[in-house]
């Protein structure tokens, strides 16, 4: 099992002032660029440390939010492509239905792949519903734009004999000819985020790596099984390295220290729902039958516990998140056993996307978390 360290580069100093809404409509006067600069350098340092610790690196992007100041995922990746030597670099990812220039995406990915000498992993993501508004992308046609961008980017990265023509529904170019060509052949590995059996099947049919984000103990097995079925239907083998899972990880010398770290990082999960209600269901983004249920009944986001019951995402405790399979927390033995159990429960996991930093956790605690994990847990995961 490979492990990837993930952070959203949160601007947590603004959280208290912004209250219940951290996304879309929050004024940037809350953001202090001097504090922000220190945070950017701190988070980049923590990723750079991963290169020494044997961990790989994952970045994502969100927009107009104090929860995540990575507004362009390829910018930290471009820095890390030069600053690191061994770690693989996962952008998970690029919201390709919201990026109106798909060829530019191919160019950015190709440059990073070459600079890093072939260490890039290319993520293509649908993007969260509240990302529609900042991009002003049409939510009613989002997935058809996603797949057209996907096809165009892969063709752009694998065509090496001069320009080709692309006049599609959403993207039009008459001379697509991307330089540089990628370092990895035929192209860097493709990852997709998934949140349902339906999206997992799309990944399975194409053989891409799927990353299930915080889908927990109860929902993840069906998602992975859907991938396996679709892969088999397409004549592909669904090897373990096709399956990734994102969880919050807090490790300490004691269970108490690990839980304390996880508790702080979990403010990532607790702040995720803090977006104004109207941004959760853009028209056509979700099936109308689902949206219809939420038009007047905006209940809080709930997470199911493995033995029945559920808890509110915005206020959950470490123990609840651990029970739900969304967090792994405790001393190294505890954390290893939790991951091992989850791995068996879902039928084999190739990648653990470890949120090792989030919320208000300090730099020292983040370094402690990553270092202890790499020394005490990572070697044992290699055997899984």
């Amino acid at each position, binding site marked *: 099992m490979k492990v990837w360290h993930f952070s959203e580069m949160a601007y947590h100093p603004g959280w208290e002032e912004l209250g219940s809404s951290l996304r879309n409509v929050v004024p940037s006067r809350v953001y202090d660029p001097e504090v922000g600069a220190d945070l950017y350098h701190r988070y980049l340092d923590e990723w750079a440390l991963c290169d020494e610790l044997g961990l790989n690196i994952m970045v994502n992007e969100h927009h107009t939010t104090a929860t995540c100041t990575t507004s362009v995922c390829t910018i930290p990746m471009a820095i890390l492509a030069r600053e690191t030597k061994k770690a693989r670099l996962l952008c998970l990812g690029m919201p390709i239905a919201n990026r109106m220039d798909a060829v530019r995406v191919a160019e950015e990915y190709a440059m990073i792949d070459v600079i890093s000498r072939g260490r890039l992993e290319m993520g293509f993501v649908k993007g969260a519903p509240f990302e529609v508004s900042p991009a002003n992308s049409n939510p009613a046609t989002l997935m058809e734009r996603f797949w057209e961008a996907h096809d165009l980017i892969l063709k752009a990265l694998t065509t090496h004999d001069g320009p080709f023509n692309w006049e599609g529904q959403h993207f039009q170019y008459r001379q697509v000819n991307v330089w540089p060509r990628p370092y990895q052949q035929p192209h860097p590995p493709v990852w997709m985020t998934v949140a349902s059996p339906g999206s997992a099947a799309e990944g399975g049919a194409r053989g891409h790596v799927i990353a299930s984000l915080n889908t927990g103990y109860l929902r993840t097995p069906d998602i992975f099984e859907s991938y396996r079925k679709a892969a088999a239907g397409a004549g592909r083998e669904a090897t373990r390295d096709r399956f990734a899972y994102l969880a919050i990880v807090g490790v300490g010398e004691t269970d108490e220290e690990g839980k304390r770290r996880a508790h702080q990082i979990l403010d990532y999960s607790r702040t995720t729902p803090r977006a104004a*209600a109207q941004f959760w269901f853009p*028209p*056509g983004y979700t099936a109308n039958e689902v949206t*219809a249920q939420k038009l*007047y009944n905006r209940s809080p986001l709930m997470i199911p516990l493995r033995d029945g019951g559920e808890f509110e995402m915005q206020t959950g405790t470490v123990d609840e998140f651990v029970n739900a399979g969304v967090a792994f927390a405790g001393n190294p033995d505890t954390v290893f056993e939790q991951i091992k159990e989850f791995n068996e429960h879902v039928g084999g996991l190739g990648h653990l996307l470890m949120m090792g930093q989030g919320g208000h956790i300090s730099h020292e605690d983040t370094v402690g978390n990553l270092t202890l994990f790499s020394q005490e847990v990572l070697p044992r995961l290699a055997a899984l």
Partner: protein
Amino acid sequence: MEKFELAGVSLDVEVLGAGPPLLYLHPEHYGQLHAPFVARLAESWTVYAPRHPGFDGRRPPADFRQVGDIAYLYLDLLGRLGLDSAAVLGASFGGWVALEMAVREPARLAALSLIAPLGVKLGGRDDRDFADLSALPDDEAAGCLFVGTPPDLGTFTEAELIAVARDRQFLAYYGWKPYLHNPSLARWLHRVTAPVHLIWGEADRFVAPGLGEGLASRLLAGRLDLVPGAGHYPQIERLDATIAALAAGPCAGVGG
């Protein structure tokens, strides 16, 4: 309900009432709340009320994405119905469709009544001619559309709620970007030769009545009537006053 196949598109057209023909083009939201209005129209006109592609629950063809496509479809429909010179009533999104029909084939439209039509932006790039409903909290968005108590979604049936979601989906499908307008429509408004009667809720905060004044001044025979005590849907909030305005407008004078 009559069914038509026009240019590869399936179309359901409700036909009701008696009197001179009137093509009624529905707005974007709350189909069932417009039923009393359509019933009142049917007391004076033979109403032809197509359900716009997509809003009708069918996926439009892949190359059918513009409001102009709906306009051509309904011009074809007028031909199929044998209506050479028709009175057309369009509300909001339906008003946009009617304007797109009118600039394409002005002679085919004898009279136009438009209730707070979308489709034409007259403000500058920093101006919101149309309130960004999907970015507003629910109560503020409802306050843009209704001056009185907005519809209580809690009383809607499951099918009606799904229709609300679908209507929003297809308003986005046709009108997300540029937002609810065709940037070149304003420059061709002089082609509309029919008399155009604009009816606007005085308290419309989705599309402010000021846009109606601008539209009226750009049309050869444009006139604007404000309906007091109404937001964006005077036909729901002030039904009698809206019917009275229509009865005194150009659509009333078009014979069958």
